[in-house]
């Protein structure tokens, strides 16, 4: 249970109220995607969702992806493929990539590029991000060793 101002954005709630600073703010026009989180299993830009809209919903941020010290396959793939430099876009990019792979478990290069076009990166030129998403897709296929963990709620349930 928590009381919030009606105008408070979900990203502000996560950062300022819950101290979940893994989700960051990169713009004020919902172009950059740095604040992407999962709301009931689907990626949203948390600057475009009011905290009260998340009332009763399950919110998953980048902090909740690791399981028992094991990185999520997409996190691991970002590391393995040097898909980040400054890392500011990375949490949002990872959350969006997981959502993309949920829709399309084996995306082509072009499908990855279009699937993450709402998330801006200024460092990498995207090439290694595309590589990482495709690498993660291979590792997350049924039968591959890593499996996708279930979402864990970090916010919501009575804002």
């Amino acid at each position, binding site marked *: 249970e928590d009381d919030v101002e009606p105008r408070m954005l979900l990203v502000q709630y996560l950062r300022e109220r819950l*101290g979940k600073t893994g989700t960051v703010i990169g713009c004020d026009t919902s172009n950059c995607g740095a604040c992407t989180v999962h709301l009931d299993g689907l990626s949203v830009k948390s600057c475009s969702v009011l905290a009260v809209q998340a009332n009763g919903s399950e919110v998953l941020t980048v902090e909740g992806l690791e399981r028992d010290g094991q990185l999520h396959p997409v*996190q691991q793939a970002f590391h*393995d493929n040097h898909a980040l430099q400054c890392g500011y876009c990375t*949490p949002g990019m990872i959350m969006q990539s997981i959502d993309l792979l949920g829709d399309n478990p084996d995306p082509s290069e072009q499908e990855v*590029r279009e699937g993450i076009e709402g998330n801006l990166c200024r460092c990498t030129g995207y090439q290694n991000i595309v590589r990482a998403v495709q690498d993660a897709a291979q590792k997350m296929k049924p039968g591959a060793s890593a499996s996708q963990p279930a979402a864990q709620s970090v916010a919501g349930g009575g804002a």
Partner: protein
Amino acid sequence: MTVVENAPQTLEIGQSRLRKEDRRLITGRTRWTDNIQITGLLHMAMVRSPIAHGTITGIDTSAAKQVPGVVAVFTGADLDAEQSSLPIAWPINSEQQPPKHPSIAVDKVTFAGEIVAIVVARSAATAKDAVELVEVDYDPLDPVLDMEAALRDDAPLVHPDLGSNKWAYFKLDSAEAGTGGDVDQAIAAAEDADDQIVVRRRFRQQRLIPAFMEPRSVVVDPNAEQLTMWSATQVPHIVRTMTALLLGIPEHKLRVIAPDVGGGFGGKLQVIPEEWLAVLVARRLSKPVKWTETRSESLLSAHHGRDQIQDITLSARRDGTVTGLKVELLADMGAQMGLFTPAVPVLGAFMYNSIYKFPAYQFNCTDVFTTKTWTDAYRGAGRPEATFAIERIMDELAVELDIEPLALREKNWITHDEFPFTTVVGLTYDSGNYEAATEKAKQLFDYDGLRREQAERRERGDVKQLGIGISTFTEMCGLAPSRLLGQLGAGAGGWEHSHIRMLPSGKAEVVIGVSPHGQGHETAFSQIVADQLGIGFDDIEILHGDTQSSPRGLDTYGSRSLVVGGIAVHKAAGKVVDRARIFAAHLLEASEDDLEFEHGRFSVRGTDKGVTIQDVAMAVFTGHDYPQGEEPSIDAEATFDPENFSYPHGTHLCATEVDTETGMVSIRSYVCVDDIGEVINPLIVEGQVHGGLAQGIAQALFEEAAYDEAGTLLSGTFVDYTLPSAADLPSFTTDRTTTAATSNPLGVKGVGEAGTIASTPAVVNAVLDALRQFGVKDIDMPTTPYRVWTALNSAKGTAGRGDEADVASPGAGLGSTAGDISKGDTQGGHL
């Protein structure tokens, strides 16, 4: 004896080590400045001028002060006595006193976005609410937007006390310097001779915005024993020194910390008004304060980049041999000068001759004030402009002479057996092999195959025409030899520092002065130290970005971290081994001369006796048994001042498909082969090249900071300032050739800016190569579909309504309007 000689089989250098930095970044445990919370923290929000130029006639803060939660509201009048003038580290003009650069305007504003009042409140939201209630009255003055108009006698003045909008004039002349011939003579001779040609072109470098992803943020705690500032900056050391010297805080009472910093690209190479205002407000209120900008604030008020008009004249013989190059620049500084504002074009002054053996050269640059956001460094700073101009005009010369553009370059470039080569500006390029890089790039690109396809498409009259663009570039980086910077009038040198602390367990803390913001210093520098000390990659911690732990350094920019900072690390590690040898010899009861050091172990030659460097570290710590007369420490520090710049080079080839019906440009293939000397970590290098290419391509195709006639920024959000997304860019083919740098012991050259410097002309050359067949002579950057379409239709005489000039966004100097796009008309008769 050095470690490298003893350990020919290097373990770490050259490996694609995955980055140490990644773990916290991919798990959301990063320490961005905006994440910092301190008990009692107050939040600042800025009231900014909506007009470009005007006199402040009144500020009413009373309504804002009534808002519950607002602690204070400050205006320029409240803070002026303490605010000093923001630093200008390299003014270029030594004749005049620079105009005062206030952090907060007092009675006049000179650009839209300038701070005029500060609201301090208990929450960021309250502060922003109250900003809306501050009433500021202005008497508007005429804006100054176009550089050429700004230089006319009747122009309104940005800084009336100076008497002119012209600030500095910088000239470099090879005849005067004794490093080459007289360019005016060369051009005059070419104009008179039948077997020679003169090519004149005007290029515009549009205004760009660095657009780092992490917005700038500052936290100041005035209550620590050392006043402590956290800032999302590239340059914590410069911020500390400048703040101490100019705001009157004793230097030892000020600590600056750059925590995790989310990109910079030159945009965070600055001492910003908000850092100083946070200090003044925190001191005044005796409370910690935070300021974090919105993206709109960032695009509006963080310094911009590029914005030059380039008039280039090339004289050549008809066989393609260039005889002279003359450069005349106008550089738009905007309204104020930051750290390097007037010096940015000077960093390009030495590079217009690029990889070529031009016998005569002259560079002239005029720095101009306008009422726009101030400009300063953006990735490449001066060198992308130089590379663009020379690579564009080499293509123009190739067209005029009907010579294959790569063949024309080869006719003029320095051949591999001519290194070291002293250029027409007096710089000595230590190493390179332009033939090898070009040959490799041609093969990877299938240059001949694409040329064939291009001819076929032309023959068929395809809607999508193919263009091939070339950029054979070099640049000077690794800033920089301190004495040379002094001769050029810079406020500080270009050395770098490292300190290695050997811990009792044999692990090492490596303190560095360069301050990373995404580059991967922790990984690359660990690789260097691991090889030298023979200890594990994971046994090394790189400490940086805090003036308390890392007191000496000049920070990260100009592709200097590895080639200057990394060499300081290398030298410090060498000194640790030298120190450890003394103690090892004592422990082994052997002569130092009989010791070999390999893989972290000192052994007595010809025996199996030995001690590891960890053994030595522990023995030094206990201090029970060490040589008489020695201090019990093997820690070491080193300061490296480079003797020369670093000269990476490469050949970039771009194939674009241009849709002749829509004007849409798409990149079909991009190949680059860069020579950056020896490589510490190929994975990191590849990442730097990818990101650099993306930014250079973005200048060619996508980005422009445009102003309207009133001096209002039109691209103040990411809706209007269009960074490329993943869907806008292709996959790049990157490769390398290697000629070791001879200017440093690791043989390395800088790589951070190379991709950006090289790629812009490759793309624009490709676009024009597709369209020259239709009579298109030039298209200003960014070559958007609208501009391409308009240029095509103007050239064909099928332009639409004829009023396109009214709807295009103005660019550099308010000049790159659609009316200029078809300036082929005025450029045709350049002989």
